């Protein structure tokens, strides 16, 4: 053939493409894949999906019925001297200007510090951009910047917040207060030291502008001085001054928290535990199995005997022991669940490597001068990847289920002392709530979500297995 011939190469169909085609033909697997992907997206973008902060308690609407629509209830606060109270975040996320309404119910004698703290990574500033007040009764608003200590990722920092006194009757549009002058991580506080002399039932609205999406803007109420304030309400309002309305699609729980939002965040936790524990098992199992299979002989039989022995241990028992003795930290759970799951992974990878090792194309590569590294990277890894991928997708739902089971036993994982409310924990809460009345939705929705997820993932995993390894069809 002369080298100037134009040649049209017929692109072949690789085994991956082939497997993908077979997967697409499996309707259940496709549905499973779509549902799984959707749930994964929801878990990743939870902040953007939820209508309200999942921790926001609307105590007026405990056990709210699914589908109910109502205004965001203002928070009623009874301040006790020296005690710190916090208003939960109202709207979960926000960028740009947000409007707040502050209802003064009774006379405020002295200053009240309102701390705004935002959970976000890159907020550079939060500005108070506008304060409206009712001129007749509010004598003076003093926005005073104390020297405040800000805690962020790199340590503590002292920042002087601008002082500004707003005299009544003055145009309030340009009043602003930079929160932080530079990029800062972690919790940030804005001190709005207001000395409001108001008689009663006055409304004060103020706008806050942030340069980044702020998650969970909290308004902490901290008193520094004596006061005789009895009750106030704070509410985040829409631009037109009306309160936000929430539809509690799946109802509210015993603390008036939105179940839908809680499920969305529960997805994140359940998925995270499923994926991380699976990755742990993947890491150990692939390495262990590959070594056993590749080295072979006595080393292999010893390593596999160890796996057999570990298989014999009642693993749930082991996980429970680990979690009760080392605490309920998620990391303990990751290690405990991953340490159990790797056994099967190791077996599968070992079997695969063992059978691949005998393949003539490995010998052909050796005959052509290919060393161990070449064979590992060009032949062994590409040929085991499919099986590993399949098994991984089957492991994730099983880990999720196990975690739910543990949460169900009351062993829900914690992170830095805070319980992580996975779907399992929500289901458990639902069961507990059942005892207190007709709160079926608190059990049914989490349980259904969990079931749908597990079904989808298993359908996807089975479909992948059938697609990658048609001979394996029907076998476990």
């Amino acid at each position: 053939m002369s080298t100037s011939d134009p040649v049209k190469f017929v692109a072949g169909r690789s085994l991956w493409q082939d497997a993908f085609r077979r997967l697409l033909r499996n309707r259940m697997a496709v549905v499973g894949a779509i549902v799984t992907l959707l749930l994964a997206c929801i878990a990743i973008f939870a902040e953007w999906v939820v209508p309200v902060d999942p921790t926001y308690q609307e105590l007026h609407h405990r056990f709210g019925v699914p589908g109910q629509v109502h205004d965001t209830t203002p928070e009623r606060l009874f301040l006790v001297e020296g005690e710190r109270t916090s208003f939960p975040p109202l709207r979960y996320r926000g960028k740009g200007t947000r409007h707040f309404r502050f209802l003064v119910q009774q006379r405020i004698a002295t200053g009240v510090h309102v701390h705004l703290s935002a959970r976000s990574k890159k907020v550079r500033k939060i500005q108070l951009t506008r304060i409206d007040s009712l001129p007749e009764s509010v004598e003076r608003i003093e926005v005073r910047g104390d020297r405040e200590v800000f805690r962020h990722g790199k340590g503590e920092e002292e920042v002087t917040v601008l002082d500004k006194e707003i005299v009544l009757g003055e145009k309030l549009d340009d009043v602003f207060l930079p929160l932080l002058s530079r990029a800062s991580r972690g919790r940030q506080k804005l001190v709005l030291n207001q000395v409001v002399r108001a008689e009663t039932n006055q409304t004060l609205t103020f706008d806050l502008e942030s340069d980044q999406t702020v998650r969970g803007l909290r308004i902490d109420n901290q008193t520094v001085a004596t006061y005789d304030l009895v009750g106030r309400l704070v509410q985040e309002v829409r631009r037109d001054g009306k309160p936000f309305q929430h539809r509690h699609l799946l109802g509210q729980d015993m603390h008036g928290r939105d179940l839908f939002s809680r499920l969305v965040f529960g997805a994140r936790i359940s998925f995270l535990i499923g994926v991380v524990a699976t990755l742990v098992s993947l890491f150990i199992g692939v390495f262990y199995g590959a070594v056993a299979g590749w080295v072979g002989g006595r080393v292999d039989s010893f390593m596999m005997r160890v796996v057999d022995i570990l298989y014999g241990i009642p693993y749930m028992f082991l996980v429970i022991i680990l979690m009760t003795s080392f605490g309920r930290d998620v990391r303990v759970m990751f290690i405990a669940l991953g340490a159990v799951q790797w056994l099967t992974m190791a077996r599968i990878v070992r079997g695969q490597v063992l059978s691949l090792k005998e393949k003539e194309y490995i010998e052909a590569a050796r005959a052509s001068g290919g060393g161990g590294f070449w064979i590992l990277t060009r032949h062994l890894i590409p040929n085991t990847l499919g099986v590993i991928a399949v098994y991984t997708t089957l492991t994730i739902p099983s880990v999720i289920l196990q975690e739910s089971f543990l949460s169900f036993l009351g062993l829900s994982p914690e992170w830095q002392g805070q319980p992580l409310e996975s779907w399992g924990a929500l289901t458990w809460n639902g069961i507990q709530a059942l005892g207190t009345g007709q709160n079926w939705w608190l059990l049914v929705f989490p349980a259904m979500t969990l079931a749908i997820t597990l079904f989808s993932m298993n359908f996807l995993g089975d479909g992948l297995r059938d697609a990658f390894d048609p001979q394996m069809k029907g076998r476990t």
Partner: protein
Amino acid sequence: MNPEKSSPLLRVRGLKKHFPVHEGLFRRQTEWVRAVDGVSFDLYSGTTLGLVGESGCGKSTLARLILRLLEPTEGQVEFEGVDVSGVSMREFRSVRKDMQIVFQDPHASLDPRMTVESIISEPLRIFGLNQRKERRWRVLELMDLVGLDPAFLKRYPHEFSGGQRQRIGIARALALEPKMIVCDEPVSALDVSIQSQILNLLEELQERLGLTYLFIAHDLAVVRHISDIVAVMYLGRIVEMATASKLYESPQHPYTQALLSAVPIPDPEIERKRKRILLEGALPSPRQFHPGCSFASRCPVVDASCRSTPQTLREVTESHRVACHLVKTS
């Protein structure tokens, strides 16, 4: 062709491979499988040695020993006059270029996740030979050489028939321009109609490229035309070795005679008159050690001394060697 004049390209002396057998719970080594048990032969440049034997007699093991895919228990392999059996793997790398192998199973010998291009170019990539672009031309050249449509460059092995796959395997073996190719039953897995195509291709390539073949097969019919010298193997040993014409015309060893009698002859007249020698029993386990002739258990002409007399290859007529003490030297 006069092979005796030059020195051989490949010289195998007393090659042995004994595999340990591990048994029981603790995998204690209990026995040895004498897969190859003292094989010697010379292979001259440009010629073909046909190696024939039943399944399990150690043909593939012998091939792997020569290519050092396995380490021999004993014996030497000399390539171009240099003993390569003792050298380090690093030094042996340069010999790899000159010695390639075509495998029996065209399904198992091609990585299913690689395209034809990456399969054929793998040896080139391992040795870092050509640049990317040149490499493609080299691959296309090789495909053309073995009769594959260059348009299939980007296809995967499972999209080909057995014969085409074997051509891919041959192209891969040719990539490094080797002097010798070990063909380990290259046609056994193929349909009879395709077998001859591949055999013709191999013969053609030998002529064009001056290749030397060690051609392994499990039946005598296949190696007849392609071989200059034929060696018959039984339980890890060569029992008879002669030029192809001599071996087919006057087989001396009872085993060879039995094998030949099983080869069908196209002429029905001769076929009917021919006497068939049926071998009794299966191939004995290669684990046993036979002090005498290993074929004694199935030999139709066995006598009392066979089981105790060690058999060695000896020349009975010019370039015809047999390992049977019953065969008279002429």
